[in-house]
């Protein structure tokens, strides 16, 4: 018996996964976030390769569940979700259009991730532009916010506290 899985193209499967939102940042899909690295059509189903954002990200189990659920809802009976750590996930994988969605949602998008630069201790980080009024006059309040991937800032111009998706 031929599974329905093979009747989908890779692009169609990606489109299905693009409907799956990140549980913590529901304005972005798991594809836009770069968590979905690959989708392969196998003889008896579909294999999705995901790369976790943070080692301890509590949303990963929910994301894997949501991915399998979305594909099953489209008739793919056998869904395998495989985890790959190489290369490590980076915010650089978030495309420009998705960054704009973040900003419109009120989260400052990540700057470029330079994970080879020397670690700076006791240095002020460059101010993050306010996603609400666009002012560069903002202050970092906490390097950690409601989730590990976000920092908390406050805007000196419009007085609005806001979150920043940290570059990693």
């Amino acid at each position, binding site marked *: 018996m031929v599974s329905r899985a093979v009747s989908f193209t890779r692009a169609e499967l990606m489109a299905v996964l693009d409907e799956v939102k990140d549980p913590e940042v529901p304005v972005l899909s798991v594809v836009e976030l770069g968590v979905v690295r690959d989708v392969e059509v196998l003889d008896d189903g579909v294999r999705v390769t995901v790369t976790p954002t*943070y*080692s301890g990200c509590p949303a990963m189990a929910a994301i894997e569940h949501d991915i399998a659920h979305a594909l099953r809802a489209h008739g793919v009976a056998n869904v395998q979700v495989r985890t790959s*750590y*190489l*290369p*490590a996930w980076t915010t650089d994988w978030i495309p420009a259009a998705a960054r704009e969605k973040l900003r419109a949602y009120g989260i400052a998008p990540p700057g470029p991730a330079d994970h080879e630069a020397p670690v*700076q201790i006791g240095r002020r980080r460059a101010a993050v532009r306010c996603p609400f009024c666009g002012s560069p006059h903002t202050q970092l309040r906490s390097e950690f916010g*409601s989730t590990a991937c976000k920092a908390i800032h406050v805007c000196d111009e419009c007085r609005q506290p806001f979150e920043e998706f940290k570059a990693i």
Partner: protein
Amino acid sequence: MSRADSSAAAQPRNDNFQYLLRLGDDRLVLGHRLSEWCGHAPILEEDIALANIALDLVGEANLLLTLAANGEAGGRDADALAYTRDAIDYRNCLLVELPRGDFAVTVARQFLFSCHALAQSDALRQSANTDLSGIAGKMHKEARYHVRHSGDWMLRLGLGTDESHARLQAAVDDLWRYTGEMFLTDEVEQRLVAAKIAVDSSTLEDPWKTRVLDVLKQAGITTPEVVWMQRGGRMGRHTEHLGHLLAEMQVLQRQHPGATW
């Protein structure tokens, strides 16, 4: 290890298992210690920060212990390794199991460990074991902001009030004798270094010292003089504190083996 197989063919597997336990146990035990601050940190932002860093460490431990379990013949998984081993089978260094102390002790310990983790994960990105190098890439990114977070606090406490300075100095004085163990190497590690899987821990001491001494100096903290470095964790000889930590961490799985929710 009671489960160690003495045949020659099993040695690489046993070495890998031991090495991954060391890496994983350091992070599991420190992550658990750090989680004790949840709801108790001095300010809300710090409460969130410490809980997030604890989550990173436990997440890293989960990856490392899963890798250890996958390579073991015993059929255990990461949960079994975390929740059913006794203290004598834990391979973490002593530094990470010490009580959390006051906030200065926590900051100093995080800084001393994170600087080591940064150099270690950087080197392990080149490991011939691609599962380990992948995890190391992740750990390296996380160690970068762990160093930044604890390093910033070293400066704040060292340059803050007389009270914060005195507490940080006392913390560094107390913890210093536990730092040497992070740079010890042994036959297990050397065999894996030869196989290009592990990093020689003794080579991590120089980059660690460069960074740590620089921050201590900036924070106005005197570097302690030490005549004897404590050791034993890598061989399962722990302080009395680890047993208490495990009693709390393991109680549910010990009372209800295999329980899930």
